[in-house]
């Protein structure tokens, strides 16, 4: 997930600034277009359809919260 976001939205993140708890919305790393791209990537990579109800400021706050949500979905 970190690698995907670095490559797709941060031009590779050459300064290594992205961490699991980096606030993605706060810093504008995730906007509506990037979120849509990420959701599509999740579907393709993990076979998981993220329902609209899970696409919230809380679950998409950071890479850590996104992966927590995905783990919960996978376990369900």
């Amino acid at each position: 997930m970190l690698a995907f976001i670095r490559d797709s939205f941060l031009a590779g993140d050459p300064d290594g600034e992205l961490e699991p708890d980096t606030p993605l919305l706060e810093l504008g790393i995730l906007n509506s277009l990037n979120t849509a791209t990420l959701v599509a990537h999740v579907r393709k990579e993990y076979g998981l359809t993220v329902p609209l109800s899970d696409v919230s400021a809380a679950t998409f706050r950071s890479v850590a919260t996104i992966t927590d949500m995905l783990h919960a979905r996978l376990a369900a």
Partner: protein
Amino acid sequence: MNAPDTATDLRADMFLLHAPSVYDFRERDDVLFAYLSDSDSVNVTSVYEMYPIGWFSIKQKLAENGFDCRIVNIASLMLMHPELDVEALISRLDAPVIGFDLHWMTQCHGAIELARVVKRIHPEALIVFGGISATYFAAELIEYDAVDVVVQGYDTLEPVTKLVTAAVRGQGSLADIPNLLYKSGDRIENTGFSHKPAANYNNVRNDWSYYQQTPVTPLSSKLIMTLPNTGCAHDCGWCGGSKFAYRNIMGVQKTLVQKDNDLIVEELRTMGEAARKTSIYALQCYSENKKRMHQYLDAVHDFGYRSVYFEQFHLTPADTLKKMGESTEAYIMLSPESHDPRISKAAGRGTFTMEQMEDWIPRAMDAGVKGVMVWFFIGMPYQDRQSVRDTVAYCEHLIKKFAGQPVLPLICPMVPFLDPGCRFFEEPAQHGYRIMHRTLEEHRQAMVEPLWHRRLNYETEWLSRRDLQDVSYEAIARLVTVKGEHGALPDTFCEAVLSTIEETKALLAEMEHALELDGRLPADLRTRVRDYNRKILAYSSDQILPMPRPFGGRWFDDVTVPPALIEQVTRAGAAA
């Protein structure tokens, strides 16, 4: 049931109510709010829940004169709270003056129906209509029982202020206020359409500060809009804001009236620190000269706005491109309407060829522009089915040529109406058009047509109304498929759009068959229509980002009615 808590009632000197396109659209099983019937070019539903930006100016002007004016977006509330009891909410709004927008024709059914509700609940309130369409249809509009006053014009700040002063403070008479049609006993009085300022359009600073605290969500970027002028420097035959239309509707020779650019800069300042997380859609900046554009760009840079979407008529010149690239994340929206220069010119564009555009795009990217969107339109002169297919084929060429770069072609139909007052509406035969609805009432009835192709008020020599519908679905489906094939759109989105198109077409076909056979829709089909409507009106989307997005967080989503009052007037809350 407990008596309502009137402490939460809203009181004002004037409410501006934005109605849905159809009232009451919820639970309708006789009208399909079909995917694409709202063109899918803006992040709204076919309820058309966005209100005109000019309302901020009215609100601000009234505030400067000591009046409390509040905007209540009934359409947005009905979408966000499907169980909302609208009449219960209306009964909790208290103001001597209640205004409705009939700016775009899409509100022609809902605004008048909602005005009837308001008149029944608040018979003493003065009900006022305004907007471009209200001006065009003023004489017919004032005849509706629920309408007390029509304010004509493109800049109504002075007349509305005088009207509210008369209604609230008893100072002055309607007879002395320009631009009004109003009822006086059994008579309709007309004070003359004389207030047509040639400069300083909407001469107040709009205040966006209410939007500062709206949270950024993953699917809802903060987006505001700026409107630096009214009318236009251009003359597209299909547009109700064109030079022709303004001469026709507003009776002015000077068809472009600009707002004081210093006020626009001050508007941008009102977002404060939140500007850094906010994007701007720069409306009508294609009518701005270089000096004004560059001043605007300086302000965008200084206030730190995240990104700006610029509507451009010509290919932006190099110096402005450079400044755009340096000022913000700049996106440019071009709209040649067709790849075919003959059609583009007939539509009022044709200011550049596709070859010139393709040469310009790399220069725009080199200057730092982050993306270029190219819009094409269905319903233009000379445009037949093959021409639309050729436009989509051209879109594929663009996608391939600029593969991996943010160049996005889009196509949408001109729906639901050709603007009354535009050249093609007024001189249809000369341009290959046939007009199907002429009066306001005909348009109102059209809005509740079961099938959206029968809602259209026009067809052309080259595409009938049914053709327009079929060609539109075919074009969008093909373009989405192409985007998926070339990675311009995630394939999960493509699948979702294509699936929605197939479902919509199938349902429309069944409805059309049933109506042709029996003149009515059978019960089981009506159930499916209602279920479809509930599903499609549960979210907004647009072609740029064809992903369902929840309501709330858009600049026009209602923020006036407090949660406590909403709870009291939802059916669930009322039953508790």
